């Protein structure tokens, strides 16, 4: 019978962090991508999340469920303060072997671009939300956490998660009403040109200064 993972993480057992990484790196990577729309930045966020998790390991309670909500909460903070986290772990990051110089295959790259494009479109909508709402959406809608887990990850009350989600939904409806569905196909690969709105903008420009 092995000592429970939480206890080992809390005790600072590197092997436990290895297991934690194996089980959660993918979830952290995708979560970071959804918060940033940038796969390369998401890669850095993976490293930073686990380095920060190590730094804060003593906050892990010995009893409890999956540590994933805790990690995703750290990812939110890492992304929020990317430069600060990067500064803190600069030496460690410097030692991380660099991404091998390009020859990514064109197909793979294209797929990455497509994902990023789709997400940027979503993010145009997300920008209309407040950060607290965005973070809750990323945790509850995309990472599949329940309200209690998201609350624990963000260090807020369950009621706060609930109200932010509810508010996010109301705001998104307004944005969708204003902008049309976010998942509509872009006209070109050139992305989302808004149609027929030049006039609205121009007429405003012509309003004389009083």
């Amino acid at each position: 019978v092995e000592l429970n993972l939480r206890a080992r993480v809390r005790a600072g057992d590197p092997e436990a962090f290895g297991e934690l990484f194996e089980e959660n790196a993918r979830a952290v990577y995708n979560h970071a991508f959804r918060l940033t729309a940038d796969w390369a930045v998401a890669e850095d966020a993976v490293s930073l999340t686990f380095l920060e998790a190590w730094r804060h390991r003593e906050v892990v309670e010995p009893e409890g469920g999956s540590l994933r909500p805790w990690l995703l909460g750290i990812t939110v903070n890492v992304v929020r303060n990317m430069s600060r986290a990067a500064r803190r772990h600069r030496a460690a990051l410097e030692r991380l072997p660099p991404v091998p110089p390009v020859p990514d295959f064109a197909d793979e790259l294209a797929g990455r671009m497509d994902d990023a494009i789709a997400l940027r479109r979503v993010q145009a909508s997300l920008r209309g939300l407040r950060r607290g709402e965005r973070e809750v959406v990323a945790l509850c809608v995309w990472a599949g956490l329940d309200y209690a887990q998201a609350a624990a990850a963000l260090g807020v009350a369950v009621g706060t998660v609930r109200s932010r989600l509810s508010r996010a939904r109301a705001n998104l409806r307004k944005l969708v009403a204003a902008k049309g569905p976010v998942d509509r196909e872009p006209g070109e690969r050139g992305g989302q040109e808004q149609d027929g709105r030049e006039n609205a903008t121009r007429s405003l420009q012509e309003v004389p200064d009083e």
Partner: protein
Amino acid sequence: MNSHRRRDGEIRELARLLPVPAERDLPAGRAQTIKEHLMTELRTREGSVPVPRHAGRAPARRPRARRMILVAATGAGVLGLAAVALVLTIQPAHRTASPGAPTAAQLLAKIADAAARQANPAVGDNQYEYVKVTVRTAGEKEHFIRDKQGNVIGNYFTPTGTYSQAQTETWSPVADVCRDGMSRSATGQEERFTAKGPGVKCPDSGGLNDPTYRLLQSLPTDPRTLLNLINTEEKGHGPGPAAEAFTTIGDLMRGQVVPPQVSAALFRAAALIPGVTVVPDAMDVAGRPGVAVAFDSHSRLANGRSENVRQEWVFNQSTLQFMGEGTVADGIVTSASAVLDRGFVDRLGEVPAGTRKR
């Protein structure tokens, strides 16, 4: 269970509103590299209390060619388009107030006095507050970076200078967020919404992020107390307490009807936020000229770049009534809204009699 089904419904709707790309693995080999690196790092710190590495001696930056291109290109794109922003209604103001112009605190004091003089309607628990706004959001154009062979190696976005703008009407329950509210889009499409969900004890008057009129009425009217309450509620969010307080107050103003005394207290609270400035010649997205107060903050983007974010609230020049708000990031308006009408009605879908302005 009912509450679960409601929660699932809410999550499903959000998922539908915000579809995302499928999950993917870390690039081949990369996961292993990162893991090995992590294990090495941890072993060298094993058992010791983790101490931040000394950052004074900066080792040479490791090359991340692809990233550098992206960041540089994004920066250039934004700079190149800065001129576009100047034609927009909410301008990034390096405008300096003329001598003798009021300070932000003085202006906000007048705005608060004007707000306090507004009629205080009797509102029934079963009524709805009606808000009609026009919302404008920025269009974006995507740019690709190619290598010599023509392969796409990066992308970035710049504002197109085009905007979509549409009106939305919202009916929100006055006393209980568990009751149905409704929104109606510019095309006439109607949707019901409710805050019912797990852990919600009904009735519920909402919170600072989804307040009912009754909740707003219960807020303290002492500006300092109110600001402290906002700071406590929003602790840890936003670039800092000042920026987050300004955002919170702006959200309350644009989204609903605010009782006169609370409205006055919110503006007096805003006057206590350090860094609020006056923009003498502003215009809301409905094209109405006015005077604005603004708050500038910096937020760090994921790519490490710093973004200047300016939030403005626009007020009618003579009546000092709140007209609209907007956000400008790096000189580009990212979103803005203007209140066209608000008031109270008895039923979903009704509009206030006599069309109160603002």
